């Protein structure tokens, strides 16, 4: 008895909450309606099917609760002995089938729209890495990594968490609104999945294979998502941030980005001091290395060895650079040569050799890294 009423309460409360969706959207009770035609269509489909399920539930549980209330032995109910009726069996095979066909029709039409392969205005290649995303604006000479920017102190509860905790990155992917954007997805190591709920875009990024999906965002804004396929240790720490802007603002951003890339390239010709490299290296380390080797350089034994007093870090600088650039085969250490600029490599090596009491005192110029790469 008690649980009957409880279940009813659950259902009615749920139904009440969901009808009032827009007001409760911030509460995170339901799927977001999103900002694309496709996401709205999926939302409507979701709600339609939800309501059909509620109706089915009400009918089935209604009959059941009726029996539980009125056909109790304690109330002197006598059991009838009927136990077969082909007509009834046929009815409740056919009726659900018809309902299912009714569901399949809109679902099929949505699916066909999602699979539309018409011309896109912008192609962005998205590559999943353990544990960050890389974006490459094809034909635009703009590409960058996008890392989680939530400070470790927030994750380990040493400081209060900000409102975008775990859903913030250093470099959002900036896109124009009202343009068809095609995402080409692949991965560098294991399978990841790129998902932004407000855009209703979820597709796996598979190493060696290319997948595509598209979106057309209608409202400017910042849309946040996460990796949706278990990809190892920091699967929960590789968010996605999409910054949708009007065309003109997007173009301005693109120009600035191209300019910055040129400026960055020139930095490597400059002669750096140890302090400059150390300061930059600290940031690079936090972004690229700390996830495994930890911010205090102590690593997580045995998979991710510590760098504090590590023989590689305390050894010859060339060998140290070689590991950073080329990785260490057979271990989790990836090759950072393609991921980091020469300046960043010089900076991070300098930082590692002088941080956490390693105090090697030496450092290396970005130009030297360029030479080392060319000499090989």
């Amino acid at each position, binding site marked *: 008895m*008690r*649980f009957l009423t409880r279940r009813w309460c*659950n259902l009615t409360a749920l139904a009440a909450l969901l009808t009032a969706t827009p007001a409760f959207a*911030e509460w*995170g*009770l*339901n*799927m*977001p309606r999103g900002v694309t035609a496709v996401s709205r269509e999926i939302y409507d*489909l979701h709600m339609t*099917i939800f309501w059909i399920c509620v109706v089915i*539930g009400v009918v089935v549980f209604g009959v*059941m609760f009726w*029996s*539980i209330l009125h*056909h109790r*032995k304690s109330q002197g*109910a006598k*059991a009838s002995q*009927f*136990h*077969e009726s082909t007509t009834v*069996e046929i009815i*409740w095979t056919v009726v*659900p089938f018809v309902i*299912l066909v009714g*569901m*399949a029709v809109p*679902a099929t039409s*949505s*699916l066909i729209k*999602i699979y539309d392969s018409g011309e896109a205005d912008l192609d962005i290649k998205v590559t999943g890495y*353990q544990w960050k995303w890389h974006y490459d604006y094809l034909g635009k000479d703009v590409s960058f990594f996008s890392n989680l920017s939530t400070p470790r102190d927030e*994750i*380990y*509860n040493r400081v209060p968490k900000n409102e*975008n*905790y*775990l859903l913030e990155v250093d470099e959002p992917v900036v896109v124009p609104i009202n343009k068809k954007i095609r995402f080409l997805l692949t991965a560098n190591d*294991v399978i990841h*999945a790129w*998902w932004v*709920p407000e855009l209703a875009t*979820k*597709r*796996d990024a*598979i190493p*060696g*294979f290319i997948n595509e999906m598209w979106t057309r965002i209608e409202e400017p804004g910042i849309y946040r998502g*996460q990796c*949706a396929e*278990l*990809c*190892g240790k920091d*699967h*929960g*720490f590789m968010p996605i941030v999409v910054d949708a802007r009007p065309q003109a603002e997007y173009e301005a951003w693109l120009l600035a980005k191209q300019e910055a890339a040129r400026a960055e390239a020139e930095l490597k010709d400059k002669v750096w001091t140890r302090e400059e490299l150390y300061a930059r290296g600290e940031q690079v380390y936090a972004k690229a290395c700390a996830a495994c080797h930890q911010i205090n350089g102590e690593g*997580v034994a*045995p*998979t991710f060895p510590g760098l504090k007093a590590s023989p590689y870090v305390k050894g010859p600088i060339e060998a140290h650079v070689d590991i950073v650039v080329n990785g260490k085969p057979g271990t989790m250490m990836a090759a950072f040569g393609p991921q980091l600029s020469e300046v960043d490599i010089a900076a991070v090596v300098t930082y590692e050799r002088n941080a956490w009491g390693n105090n090697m005192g030496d450092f290396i110029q970005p130009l030297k890294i360029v030479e080392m790469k060319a000499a090989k």
Partner: protein
Amino acid sequence: MSAVLETHAEEHHHGPRKGLMRWVLTTNHKDIGSMYLWFSFIMFLYGGSMAMVIRAELFQPGLQLIEPEFFNQMTTMHGLIMVFGAVMPAFVGLANWLIPMMVGAPDMALPRLNNWSFWLLPFAFAMLISTMFMEGGGPNFGWTFYAPLSTTYAPPSVTFFIFAVHLMGISSIMGSINIIATILNLRAPGMTLMKMPLFVWTWLITAYLLIAVMPVLAGAVTMMLMDIHFGTSFFDAGGGGDPVMFQHIFWFFGHPEVYIMILPGFGVVSQIIPTFSRKPLFGYTSMVYATASIAFLSFIVWAHHMFTVGMPLAGELFFMYTTMLIAVPTGVKVFNWVTTMFRGSLSFETPMLFAVAFVVLFTIGGLSGLMLAIAPADFQYHDTYFVVAHFHYVLIPGAIFAIMAGVYYWLPKWTGNMYNVPMSRLHFWLSFIGLNIAFFPMHFVGLAGMPRRIPDYALQFADFNQIASVGAFLFGATQLLFLFIVVQCIRGGRRVTAQVWDSAEGLEWTLPSPAPYHTFTTPPEVR
């Protein structure tokens, strides 16, 4: 449906061996059934304590108790242990105890094989659990172990994981062969197939499913083993393989596996509801056909677990349609149970409470499953907590509640004693409330965008996660009560009659309570 003309007096007078060797060497289906049930209960508590660790870490945002690396091992081991260690052996245990008694057989058809199938399990799980203490830790790639995370990027202990899966597979296959042979060859005279209790029917179909798909799982892990150690590249794109193929092979096993975990539960509930409705099961024949069609359909729906891997449109449509079709036979079963209750004379003993909760909550899980079948909507649901909520709704109030309902139903027959009824009701209500508090909010966080298998989450998910953790702790703690009730019942209690329940049907109720060590040494005759 069937009645016994004559129960034969015991011919064998020797009882069980004494001491530990009784259990090591036993070929008695009742002993082996008990061992399976105890083993699965230990695994249930072990896997459950891992769930407690997971829920404790997720109690609030931020990393408090464990590191992500260990969290991944927890989710993986929780899944593997609950699927292969708790649910499957528990149903095999019920099958061992009940199938011979239900079909009027003296024992399982292949008693020595039966002993071996059980004794492989402790070794398999000892090996699996030992990986957690190895360098690099245990499996951390999810219970679905997708390549290349489980091959190129796996910890070294993956080899032991593979062997453990092989042993579990061999154990299940041998168990299934035994069950099929018992059902097909050892039925008492007059016990035709269409007179068998539904529990026997669902197990017969389940056993065939196991025989069909466990070897495929064995093949998949063998391919992994070869990729890792022998330089083949089944799943490595660099050598001409394909990681997506792993998912196809895995889910070709995995989807029937889902039904392996639920079909015997359907059987248990189909025994209990008629008893406490005092009315025959409605639509027995259609129940059998519905079970068989669910089993058949389970082979052609596997890729609905992979709607986001980038299948062509035709593939998405095919798997969406076939998956939706499963709702038809599943609906038939639910309608039959409800109609069995309709105009019955209902009473709510503990097994009935679990069975009614099964029907209600499993239906909720089934309806969310129908939502997940809709491919475009699945692009939003896939790999979120909505999925976690869905499969916990079908597995806890589905499989686990069915097992508990079964234990409460047959325990008096096994021990000859009635358990502490008020305690068992308390166990039911606390479990029921706990699991709804734990899993209902997961629908909401999933829809709102929380991916599964993450050790830490954004702030907007905090409230519901806290509620879910509280519910999980309640559910988890309550299961210790179950242990207490069962132990107390074995040690003593109010003696029960052979019939136990006033309107239970079937051969097992014609035997004295507790059921003697050897039963039906002369087959009963069934009218």
